[in-house]
């Protein structure tokens, strides 16, 4: 190959740089486009499997099989669905920030190219949160029609408070993704499997997913423990929005979601900036 020949297209005279503000916005949008492209073109099957398989089995076993064999009441499915929606929302968002970050910071180093894009380092972290939250929302919404097929009583959304539902979905996805940002930037790659055992399992089972929070009154110490899990507020919020049965007071749900978002958002962004800039 001749190196003295210069392709005409490359002979661009010194390019006028975009104003910094415009450059930042375009970079942010382009990073999102990259993630959407990869989600649709490359990761679709693995994303759906990772996001949907576990909740579908929960719905099937707890909502269909157990009532069928007489180990649970027939109406249990109705109580279970909001919890499973919350679980799917939060865990999908969490895993879609934490797992890629651990890999991109250590093994593949591919975050480096994005950190050199013309936007502040923290904005690259926020962009990850946005995309992971969107993935969480998509997964949770896909659960609804599937639940209608699995649960014996189907899904009845007749009495749903749609505004409340939208707010809980948005808040839950953001909290989950922010928690993922914390994990993804604080866990060393050689500990990643331990992290999932230590963090995800307790998160899964202390989040008022499989039972309404108020029903824990006879097990008060556990009821208090669950208040430290952000998932509790998402599950209860979901219950409040779509079932309308007993749930944590609305203002406590709002406070729980707001505090978790601020806390994990701040902690995660700080962790991300520290990993990004030495």
């Amino acid at each position: 190959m001749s190196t003295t020949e210069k392709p005409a297209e490359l002979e661009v005279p010194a390019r006028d740089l975009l104003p910094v503000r415009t450059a930042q916005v375009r970079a942010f949008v382009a990073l999102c486009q990259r993630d959407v492209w990869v989600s649709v073109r490359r990761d679709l099957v693995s994303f759906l499997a990772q996001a949907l398989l576990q909740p579908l089995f929960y719905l099937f076993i707890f909502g269909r099989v157990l009532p069928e064999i007489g180990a649970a009441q027939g109406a249990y499915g109705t109580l279970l669905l909001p919890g499973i929606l919350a679980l799917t929302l939060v865990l999908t968002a969490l895993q879609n920030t934490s797992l890629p970050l651990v890999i991109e910071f250590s093994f593949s180093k591919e975050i480096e190219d994005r950190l050199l894009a013309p936007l502040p380092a923290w904005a690259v972290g926020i962009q990850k949160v946005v995309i992971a939250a969107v993935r969480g929302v998509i997964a949770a919404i896909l659960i609804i029609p599937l639940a209608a097929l699995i649960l014996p009583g189907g899904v009845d959304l007749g009495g749903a408070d749609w505004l409340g539902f939208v707010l809980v979905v948005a808040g839950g996805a953001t909290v989950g993704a922010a928690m993922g940002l914390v994990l993804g930037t604080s866990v060393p790659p050689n500990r990643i499997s331990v992290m999932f055992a230590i963090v995800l399992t307790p998160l899964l089972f202390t989040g008022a997913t499989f039972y309404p929070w108020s029903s824990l009154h006879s097990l008060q110490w556990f009821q208090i423990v669950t208040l430290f899990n952000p998932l509790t507020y998402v599950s209860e919020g979901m219950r409040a929005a779509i079932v309308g049965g007993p749930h944590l007071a609305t203002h406590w749900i709002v406070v729980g979601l707001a505090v978790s978002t601020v806390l994990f958002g701040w902690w995660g962004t700080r962790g991300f900036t520290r990993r990004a800039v030495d």
Partner: protein
Amino acid sequence: MHAVPMIEVDELRKRYAPQAPEAVKGISFGVERGEVFGLLGPNGAGKTTTIGVMTTRVRPTGGTVRVDGIDVRKHPVAVKQRIAVVPQRPNLDRSLSAIENLTFHAAYFGFSRQERRVRAQAMLERFGLEGRENDRVDNYSGGMAQRLMIARALMHEPSVLVLDEPTTGLDPQSRLFLWDQVENLRARGVTLVLTTHDMAEADRLCDRIAIVDHGEVIALDTPRGLRTLLPSAQGLELTVAAPEDPAPGYATLGDVESTATIEDRWTVRVYGALSPGDAVAAADRAGHDLIELRRIEGTLEDVFVHLTGRDLR
């Protein structure tokens, strides 16, 4: 002509943790526009930290770095618009194909869809990757990955390109190709900063070289200027064919050393300020077959070892 140098590093200091020793202890240098500047030093000397600060990835604990007159610490985004990096280890986006690596990189820098495609195609051609543009980058060899990373770095027309140990682990063909590309970029006026511990590379490519050791610049000059740091470095070296020790034939020119090499070949070093003409005439008179004649300058490797010592790092 611009008055401001492209890169100004002023009393740069970096300590990674409060108790850790300083990785960089007050480095200063400037890189002119269009210059090819080398940072040469043993492992752990502070080269990577220095370029880390330049590229906004390392926060300095003291001093300033300016790129195109812009303070890296105060305006990192404006610096990122002007700079590009080819890292030591591959960091290509493995979820994307080769051409997508280029087009998305250009998208991050605000290029239109049309521009991205045209530029990406031209780059792939220039870097000998046409026909492999739709491959996943996982399937790329080390040399190809490196070429793609350079192509990616050039997608947004940076005015400064930083190459971190660009030829480590490359085969000779890829290395020559890279060297040609560096020459090519120099011709286009791109400012290049490269780190290396390959002397031949530094010697061949760089206009000026800073030798860095223990976090400090211990010498900064042109390759030729650095060589003069060696003691007794002037003279001529002749390779001649002669039946017996040829040294007496050159005794009138200066101090002579001779060593037998292979068969009837001898290497004769004559130290002092003599002209090549004198040496050729002397060889003629003595009836020696002159095979090679070169000026003794001392190699950069000699200079490097002379300045940094032989200890392992």
